[in-house]
């Protein structure tokens, strides 16, 4: 998936700004800037990055919807209506007498063209209301309820906000449920990558010498192999009869096994750079213990960079999962993820009859762009005194 190499968080800002620069930039008094904590400075600068703020709010919304998927989705993933396969999207209409409504439809197959045809019954109304009772679900996996944010007022009525898929299930609900896997697989995968990257990059950067050389060669080796064929090869060896959860975990591990290299490089680079800083030397001369030097003096200096790099690695993982599932080697059908949904949209012929099947792709694009904006903003603000690029 053609993931382009991860942009690396700028390892060495070559000009250092002053308190005055920063106070002019954030519009705060130089006294406030001088006494503010590092975290506060980063936040002030991040807030100035308009695209990053937009991205951040998008992500907050998307993860909230994913966490309360049952509430936001009008239907559960298992509810479908066979006769409504490939039903086009229904735009709610409004009248003062009826409120928001759509007309119920009956579907059948055109015997000559074999295309699905839907007839509206304009006599009847499906009323769309807020906080309606519908399919049962467990909120956050704990609280059993059947309240949905928005949907048909009577349980059993159908409404296809974004159209229906091959089986006649509501695409909007599936996209909302799919976000649970698609948005979390990136985080879990990056967490595993980060663990590997911290461990190996840390060893490489802290000890240096032969260990460093060997690890650097290994990283270069990994970076010089096309990842997708390897992923495909590894993913093909996951037995198809495995359940959804083990497959999910396996895919995550496969994604992160090949994704740790760039993180390890960044961590090593930062460690090497910080190791030679005057304040580390000063701490050393004062007789501070190694552990305290690492955790009290060195780690805070590069956490912000690591966070920036991580936030740029998440979208790459999301794209990878989508591509693997799309090719049929990732998650498989009973599981719902954006990649699995896009499997339905494999050929141009299907898209010509049901273009709305590409909408899960828009969700992917939105999530990835949002993560990239946030990552870019974090990278700019990770070093509050560094120059702005």
């Amino acid at each position, binding site marked *: *998936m053609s*993931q382009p190499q991860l942009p690396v968080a700028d390892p060495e800002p070559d000009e250092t700004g002053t308190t005055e620069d920063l106070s002019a930039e954030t519009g705060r008094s130089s006294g406030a800037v001088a006494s503010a904590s590092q975290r506060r400075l980063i936040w002030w600068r991040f807030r100035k990055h308009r695209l990053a703020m937009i991205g951040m709010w998008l992500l907050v919304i998307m993860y909230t919807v994913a966490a309360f998927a049952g509430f936001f989705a009008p239907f559960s993933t298992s509810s479908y209506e066979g006769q409504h396969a490939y039903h086009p999207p229904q735009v709610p209409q409004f009248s003062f007498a009826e409120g928001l409504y759509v007309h119920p439809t009956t579907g059948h197959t055109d015997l000559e063209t074999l295309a699905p045809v839907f007839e509206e019954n304009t006599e009847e109304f499906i009323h769309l209301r807020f906080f309606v009772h519908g399919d049962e679900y467990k909120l956050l996996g704990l609280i059993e309820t059947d309240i949905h944010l928005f949907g048909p007022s009577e349980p059993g009525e159908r409404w296809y906000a974004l159209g229906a898929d091959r089986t006649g299930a509501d695409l909007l609900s599936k996209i909302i449920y799919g976000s649970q896997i698609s948005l979390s697989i990136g985080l879990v995968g990056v967490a595993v990558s980060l663990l590997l990257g911290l461990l190996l990059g840390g060893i490489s950067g802290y000890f240096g010498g032969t260990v460093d050389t060997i690890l650097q060669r290994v990283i270069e080796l990994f970076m010089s*192999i*096309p990842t997708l064929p390897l992923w495909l090869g590894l993913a093909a*060896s996951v037995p198809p009869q495995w359940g959804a959860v083990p497959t999910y975990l396996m895919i995550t591990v496969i994604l992160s096994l090949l994704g740790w290299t760039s993180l390890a490089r960044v961590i090593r680079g930062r460690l090497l750079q910080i190791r030679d800083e005057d304040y580390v030397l000063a701490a050393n001369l004062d007789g501070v213990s190694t552990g305290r030097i690492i955790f009290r003096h060195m780690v805070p200096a590069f956490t912000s960079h690591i966070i920036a790099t991580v936030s740029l690695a998440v979208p790459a993982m999301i794209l990878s999962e989508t591509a693997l599932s799309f*090719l049929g080697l990732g998650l498989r059908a009973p599981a719902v993820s954006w990649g699995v949904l896009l499997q339905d949209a494999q050929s141009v012929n299907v898209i010509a009859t049901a273009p709305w099947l*590409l909408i899960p*792709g828009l969700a*992917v694009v939105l999530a990835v762009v949002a993560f*990239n904006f946030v990552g870019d903003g974090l990278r700019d603000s990770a070093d509050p005194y560094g120059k702005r690029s």
Partner: protein
Amino acid sequence: MLRFTLYRVLHVIPTLIIISIISFFIIQLPPGDFLTTQIAALEAQGESLDPAQLEALRIRYGIGEPFWVQYWKWISNIVLHGDFGLSFQYQRPVADLISERLGLTVLLGLATLILTWVIALPAGVISAIRQHKAADYIISVLGFVALAVPNFLAALALAYIGFRFFGQSVGGLFSAEYVNAPWSFGRVLDLLEHLWIPVVVIALAGTAGIIRTTRANMLDELHKPYVTTARAKGLPEGRTIRKYPLRIALNPFVSTAGWNIPSIFDGEVIVATVLALGTTGPLLLGSLRSQDMYLAGGIILIIAVLTVIGTFISDLLLAAVDPRVRFGKA
């Protein structure tokens, strides 16, 4: 330069060996051995294999022997005899299957690489010169979007547009009348007509990263004293930029070109599958699905080797343009 080249060659050889081991490891991952799979497949069709022939195959591929023995048989056959083993799905030698398609894959890769450069370099330079102006923002946002659109989605969308509005036949690299025709001028034109969709799709995904790098490098150089000196001496702006900062900003550009090759092959697998191109990507995917592991391993090996060679060439190019790299100072 000679010393540097030799040094790099010494690095490439162990890399190639390790890559071949990884490729073979992947072949071995699925449970059971391939002969058992093949026998099962044949029996399912009501045929049976001659026991003598079976024994010959068993000895030839070292089935049942330790990993290293099997690996040695596999790799020594490839290196010494050019024999990649047999594809069960096609019942043909893997080497034949790959060589039929490799040319198109390499052509696609080269065309993509060139297009990526042609788009990304000027875009990055303009973005740096016009920093914080409209052009910069437009290029940055477009770059992010190009990075975010999954390859296959872009391919599907473009194929749909080509089909809907230009009446272009969808899929494949040739129109029906040229598929089996010998090479001619018309066939080349036909190929170019079909090649643009996959090339544009794969190239776009790669440009965003290079635009960012070029922009950052140019910004670093643009404010250095030597640029001011050139301006102070009255050099026209265009010439100033071409002659001085651009040359230095190009260095990392050449070196990242090498890192970009893997992503081109990655993109090729997906895009070629969606568009049903006759390249190695769909073959690889098909072989992985049907667990035709010798074919899969062979393709992974060839792609990885091509990538390593590409990276090697880009390292040499970098050394050629930047003396600091040659002397190990940068």
